[in-house]
């Protein structure tokens, strides 16, 4: 067992996937020789060769569409899109083909593939490099959407995604790549897709988040604890299929819910959480659900990004509002 960053855990997970499954290939821009813009595939081409870790021309639609064909043909492609904001040229392939071939062919053809997308802001990057538009993919029937926030989960969920018989959008929180470390099992392990994790038990309010915002959410729970508020922290880990049972059980227990994400508010994942809570747990609620989210604006550039991303303070304030409601 080694202490790894999220980036290292993903690298180890990809290495093990390549070693275990001869039908796995990694495809993407600069994933081979340079090991990817975030070095997640570092060293893999050296070990497995350019036929397994494939540098591609700059063509997101092409990469995904070609990988789709590979998957239909029996391979297990793992595609890297450099940044989530670059996934839009591949949108047609993902939505019209990857997500649909099983239905279109009534199970005869399937596209078991993983599309990895580093997502989210907070690193002062250029425009299009800070997107958090998971809702688009969550809203698309036929896709699974996974968003790890911890190194061990990242490795385990990646292994599950590679082995999954259906296509998985695998969102990687850019600003946590090297910001969190934890002990990660050396051997291949899987974390089931579709299971949320109750990271911290509490009784007063449920804080729900996933991916990059888990960092601020955890910190908010600490601050609340110092103020005598017992917050339960739920890391959803998978957005599709959602672990509705764990989520609702927590809200029923605490009677209050704050959902946190950096994606824009309108029809963001928080809207789904609030709707589910309203439909199924309304009578357990002691306060209206709160959403702490990015604004319905373009993510600001470096100098103003701080005004966009939900802060620990905003999460704490929202939790306290539910307590005084």
């Amino acid at each position, binding site marked *: 067992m080694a202490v790894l960053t999220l980036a290292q855990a993903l690298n180890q997970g990809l290495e093990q996937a390549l070693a275990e499954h001869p039908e796995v290939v990694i495809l993407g821009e600069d994933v081979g020789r340079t090991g990817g813009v975030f070095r997640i595939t570092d060293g893999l081409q050296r070990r497995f060769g350019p*036929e397994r870790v494939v540098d591609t021309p700059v063509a997101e639609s092409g990469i995904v569409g070609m990988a789709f064909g590979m998957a239909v*043909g029996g391979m297990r*492609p793992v595609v890297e899109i450099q940044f989530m904001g670059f996934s839009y040229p591949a949108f047609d392939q993902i939505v019209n083909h990857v997500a649909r071939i099983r239905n279109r062919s009534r199970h005869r*053809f*399937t596209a078991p593939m993983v599309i990895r997308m580093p997502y989210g802001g907070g690193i002062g990057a250029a425009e299009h490099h800070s997107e958090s538009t998971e809702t688009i993919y969550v809203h698309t029937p036929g896709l699974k959407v996974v968003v790890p926030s911890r190194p061990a989960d990242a490795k385990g969920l990646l292994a599950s995604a590679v082995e999954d018989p259906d296509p998985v959008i695998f969102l990687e929180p850019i600003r946590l790549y090297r910001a969190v470390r934890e002990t990660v099992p050396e051997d291949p392990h899987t974390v089931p897709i579709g299971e949320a994790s109750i990271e911290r038990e509490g009784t007063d309010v449920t804080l729900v988040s996933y991916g990059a915002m888990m960092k601020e959410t955890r910190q908010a729970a600490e601050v609340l604890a110092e103020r005598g508020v017992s917050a339960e922290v739920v890391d959803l880990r998978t957005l599709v299929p959602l672990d*509705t049972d764990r989520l609702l059980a927590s809200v029923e227990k605490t009677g209050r819910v704050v959902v946190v994400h950096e994606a824009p508010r309108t029809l963001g994942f928080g809207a789904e959480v609030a709707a589910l809570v309203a439909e199924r747990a309304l009578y357990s609620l002691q306060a209206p659900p709160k959403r702490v989210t990015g604004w319905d604006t373009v993510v600001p550039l470096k100098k103003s990004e701080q005004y966009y991303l939900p802060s620990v303070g905003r999460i704490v304030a929202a939790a306290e509002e539910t307590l005084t409601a």
Partner: protein
Amino acid sequence: MLQLLTPSGDVLGEPPLSVDLTRRLYRAMVYVRTFDRKCAALQKQGRLATYAPFEGQEAAQVGSAAPLDPEDWMVASYRDAAAMWMQGYPWELLIAWRTGDERGGRPPEHVSVLPPSITVGGHMLHAVGLAWSARHFGEERIAITYFGDGATSEGDFHEAMNLAAVYGLGVVFFCQNNQYAISMPRTAQTRSETIAEKAIAYGMPGVQVDGNDLFAVFTATAEAIDRARAGDGPTLIEAVTYRLGPHTTSDDPSRYREESEVEQWRRRDPLERVRIFLSERDAWTPEWQERLETEASTEIERAVELAEGMDGLGPARIFEAMFDELPPHLVDQRAEALRSVGQ
């Protein structure tokens, strides 16, 4: 432009196909024309959702699919039922799909044909990936993809051509230039003189053939298939042809083209020249023609019956092919859907 059999039935040079094979492919063209006309008629009766006829393009589809091995991948568009049938896709499923039944999208296990793509152009990339998987697993299969002149303006045409060439994959890009993308004429689609010449930019061979000439189409495609199978990479084939009918049954071509133009192309009918060729070699008789048409009609009528006998998916089964295993939210929604119809 490669032409081996003129509209008046004259062979230029040695016939590339035996009389026997020519007879078999002529028979196939009669069958697919019967299918096409039957489907257009069914649509008029409201029995098909919509239909995109291919009359005039029979030689392009039959001639290009004929040299394939049975296990070769085919990724076609909505107008390519003839090619798909040639590669083993059963009539009744081709019809079922057009009646609005998803099960028409599931070919039998031994048939390596993807259900057709409705969006234009995206599917070419799938052929590239399939050719890659064949190479990865050391299979002898190649992949052929069908598209029209309109699709060559799509970005995915460029990406598919480029990727196939960059990785040297065994793909045959088969373009049926039928002169119109709905109403947009070929001349307005691109300033390239030919579609075939676009291949030069990608570093692959490009061939323009008379798409109404069974011999030319067969010869050019067979060469491209051989090249792909030998590991020598992709080829672009432009089959110059004409869609004699509307884009789909909801289209009115009189809004964008003159009847005189259509007449001109009728005189280049892809079946007629083969008929003359066979007739001159005592390999065609009116009786045989009649028998073929009767057999084709009977076979297709039977397929229509089978397709129309399928009862649709119903409320439960619309959920069942979204994922390998139905996730909890779909289990709930399925129950709700069933309750909503009192089941």
